[in-house]
């Protein structure tokens, strides 16, 4: 895999991970071009597209697009499943994940990605192991910051920004299905 991008329906970049050395200028150019191309595609279309000499594999989860660039000899379908596994991991970690989680905790999303993919290759495909590694590191956080914190209910906040929510009925049911299958 050459790089992975997460962006919203509005074209805002949410996460970017580059596995090949490129200059910032190139990165920006690629991102801009790709976001435009992918957003212009119709829902019934193929999840793959040819772009320069790369293959782009993308999938939309609610309002968020996950987009990977792979080489020609790579398998497109498995890349689609890599995306899905990443979503599953996020979902398991954050509870039922929404775009907000990724925006406000983007560094966590990066940590999870780094445990799952390393140098562009799938590092650990066992869901349990990935989350265990993250939780271990998080544990330190809990220990060092054991101040009690009282916060208002999350729901109130989420409803204020309902436009951000990625939980649409389809996705919910989808993730439920995957959970049942995995357990």
């Amino acid at each position: 895999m050459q790089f992975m991008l997460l962006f919203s329906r509005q074209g805002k970049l949410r996460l970017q991970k580059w596995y090949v050395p490129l200059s910032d200028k190139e990165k920006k150019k690629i991102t801009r071009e790709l976001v435009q191309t992918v957003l212009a595609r119709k829902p019934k279309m193929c999840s793959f597209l040819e772009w320069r000499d790369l293959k782009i594999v993308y999938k939309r989860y609610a309002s968020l697009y996950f987009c990977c660039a792979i080489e020609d000899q790579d398998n497109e379908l498995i890349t689609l499943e890599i995306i899905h596994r990443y979503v599953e991991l996020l979902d398991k970690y954050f509870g039922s994940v929404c775009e907000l989680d990724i925006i406000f905790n983007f560094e966590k999303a990066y940590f999870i990605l780094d445990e799952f993919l390393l140098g562009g290759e799938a590092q650990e495909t066992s869901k349990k192991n990935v989350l265990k590694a993250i939780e271990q590191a998080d544990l330190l956080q809990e220990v060092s910051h054991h101040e009690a914190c009282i916060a208002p209910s999350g729901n109130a906040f989420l409803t204020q920004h309902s436009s951000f929510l990625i939980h649409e009925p389809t996705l919910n049911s989808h993730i439920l299905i995957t959970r049942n299958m995995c357990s």
Partner: protein
Amino acid sequence: MSDVVEKTLTALPSLLSLDSQPGAGKLSSTSKLGQFIRNITELTSKHEEEKLIKKELAVIKDQVSSPYTTMRQMRELMVRSMYCEMLGYEASFAYIHAIKLAQQGTVLEKRAGYLAVSLFLNENHELLLLLVNTVLKDLQSTNIIEVCMALTVVSQIFPKDMIPAVLPLVEEKLSHPKEIIRRKAVLALYKFYLIAPNQVQHIHGKFRKALCDKDPGVMTSSLHIYLQMIQESPDSYKDLVGSFVTILRQVVGGKLPLDFNYHSIPAPWLQMQLLRILSLLGREDQSTSETMYDVLNESLRRAEMNHNITYAILYECVKAIYTIHPKAELLEKAAKCIGNFVLSPKINLKYLGLKALTYVVQHDASLALQHQMTIIECLDHSDLLIKRETLELLFRITNAQNVTVIVERILSFLRLCNDDYTIIDLVGKVAELAEKYAPDNEWFIQTMTVVFSLGGDLMPPDIPSSFLRLLAEGSQSEVDDRQLKVYAVNSYLSVLNDDCSHLPQRFLQVISWVLGEYSYLREGLDQEEVILLLKKLLDQRGVSAETRSWVLSALTKLCRGSGRAELALAVAESLSSTLDTVLRQQGHELRHLIQDGSLHARVLPQPAPANSLEVDSSLSFLDGFVSDALAAGAAPYKPPHQRQEELGQQRAPTLEPYALSLPMSLSSCTVTDRQSPSVLSMSSGLSANSTEPSQRAGVATLMLEGVKRVWGKEGYLPQRDTSETPATVEEPSDVVQSSHQQVVIDISQPEPEPEPPQLDKKQQLASSLFVGLGSQNSACLLGKTEATVPRFRRKPHLNDASSSGTSERSSDSSHSSHSTADSFLYGGLLEEEPATPIQSSRHAPQPIAASGSCEARQHGLTVNGVDENRGGAVVCAKEEKRAHPTQLIESDMVRVRPNALAEGAVVPPQNCSRHLPSTSSCGSDSEVLKLPFELQNLPHSDIISLISDSHLCISCCRVFREDALLIVLFLSNSTEMVLCDVALELSCEELQMGSLRGNVMESMAGRTSSVCHYTVFMERPHTHVPFTGTVSYQTQPGHKHTLHFSGKLTTADFIRPLVLSTEEYGKLWLSFSHDVKQNLRLLTDAGDPLIATLNVLKDCLQLHIVDIIGSEGIVACRLLDGAPCLMHCRVHGASLAVWLRSSLSSFPDCLLYHCQRALQEH
């Protein structure tokens, strides 16, 4: 529930938090970021966002440089700067602080610091050097999390030069008790392997340990490395096949922990990785492939669930099955799988199906036929990607009959396409197809016109230059050439008469060249009109200086004659004040040429003769300079492609357009003599330079751009020998005929499905697209079966043409000479052995040692029942016939060579039935047969049995004499009877047969043997040369028996070492023009790979190793005592880059083919 709590804690900013409180910790920091994010999302305009972020960055910058900022605050600042960077605003001031944070922070802050570093910097950033110490420290830490973080960052970004510093520590981690550490260490080493393979060479043994790790995660990670290494040299890892198969079997069988399941499929990533590795290992290796059939079958069987992930596995399975040595049963299943993909309503699967089909049609084009209607539907699919992949598929099945339809499709796609990469790729493909299969001149020119106008100036320059070269060099038919040129002139005139302001520069250049060169060919065309048109072009705005210069050259060619001269003079005048110096000079030249008519005629003769320009392509006038420089120690010249190879591969995505797959180049070689060795192997019976018949024969079957056809409906097609059928035995060289026979056989088979009479539009399209596909003619719908010869066969090189001529002539003469020789010999010159002229002229004193062995041999023969007194007196070792000492070249030459003949010898069926048990001793007979003494000291092959019947047994041995190949045939009478009138005849059409002796005997006593020699010469290399022969004899008067036999000779039999010094080699090298470059496999199993490989080649092919310096070696050989071939070898990575040169055009190709064979068989 804990999830919810944690989420609440982390995701939500506290409304109560106060930034000023230093102890506020996580919540306050999150809130700051949260507040910032919320502020940004509330903004509506890009401008406001920019203002806000600039402000934020200023604040961050201020804070990071403050000495009072704690690490905890720093961490929060880093997160904020990461966010700003993600939004596209540069925060380079934070980079150094990210490194500092990774260095000095506690575990938690380190984590953020490392993340920031990996996001901010890339591999080449100079600040990364500052990170090395931190990484070293963390790798040695006792805290697992710190080690993990260090390993993670190392495998993401690490400066190449610093690898040696951390390598020992990473290596050490391979035996860490925690699997997560081992796993990350393996991946870090994988990364190192990718960027600096040499540095991890010494730990290959440890990779094996990782492969056997008890943790599946570690094992999976090690497969990344293996996949990479096996891709580079599959042969070094054949011993691991068993392990990979076992692992895959266990995975498929569900032996892994359930954790690794994904949607109830066990470890799909692992499965796919293994399938890829296996396909690489099993490629072209039957025995290895056989070990994996079972597990592949099992994978196919298990992957039946209807989910994306199973399809992903199936796709890899199918690819593996088609890559490895084929097995009919699996192929059938794989073909069915592809069918499921292609027919799936899901668009993603359909795409993958097309991709698989594109991969598979290379092996078996008939699969495309099965899915033709689906392919047609995909051609009109709304999704461009599907369309594009379909076109790719069509490109691979194009032949002379469907080319117009396919090219039309591609062009109409191109007209709507606006992606540069796609355009460049497709334009190249159309140009290739047009040149290869154009049905007529008109179509060709029109298609190329579209190609030029669509391809525009993005088009790589090869296409126009190759097109012009084709026009200039022409084909074999002069009438055709002229017609083509005139048609081009006509159509370009009409293009220029229209509005041509939108035409790309490259096209204008082509037009002006063609008009300048060939407009005189069109009758009734006023040249002034052409000049006016060109002048208009010259004045047109938007025409580049380069194009103007092309136009001007055309004008210069046309300016002869009064009216034209004035026009041209006006142009020249107008250019005299131009600022462009090139144009001004050309204008100046133009004026001079107009004024001096005789000079003009000399410089630019009107019908430019094809060979008027004597180009010294080898630049021989520089030879002295070059050899002086070489003698002074200069490095030998490396061509650009070789230099590029050496630059090593970078992993960065190439943002350059695709390289074209065109086989054309500007070098002196033409398409026809650039046959790859694999093609040579396909046309087993064909001579290397007779591409013409091979192409023609191909039309009847397939024309897949030289793709080796090894797959048929029944699976693998074994390599077809021309000597397979008795009919071809009679005329082994006539390939056209043999292919006709093939067609006849094919047609005679029942047609599988008669076509329904009604044909709707789609079926019509299908029939035009898939015409001529598949091995059976019956398979195409409306198949026109007449074979069309590719229109633009480039004119073959002169010596090629003459060679085919001479070979025909020589075959004729050999026929006649045979008959006369036979009648002459039937006259009863039995004892009189017409010794070969060379031998008789080379009498030499007999070495004493040899006489001893001579006696021993005679003794041996007597023991074996050959009585010289009673026998035909042919086998006798007379002193005069002793080999000349000069023929005992090097002592290591006297060896037995491997038997290439055995595989070629095919016994005609009618003789097999006559086998009697009594002749079973034949095989053992051949063991006791011995070569005549004078030949024993020459290098020779084993003696093999060619054929036998109840009376006679024929064996053969090849003796490699310096100047010729001797075919020594042994006739042994296996009965007690006396055989009468034994006559032997041997013929070979491609070769010159020299002297022969002992081929007729009046009688042959029971249990005796007789020897017969043929001297064979090869003047032009042929990869394989079949020979046939007959023996007739009478058991009793009137009972005539005939035995047919055949065999095959290869160029390798005719290659002799050429002993020369390095200096002589250098001089010879420069004098040859025919060269071929190729990469060969490097043998890495023992010792120095270069020396090992060259030794194998030397042993198999009798090459002479001139010199080996470092990673380069030079090798020389020649065809008997004739044309030499020089080979320059250089180790490049895991392969051997060879460069061959010879004075014979087809020799390098032939030799290369045999080198490949030799290395493969080793």
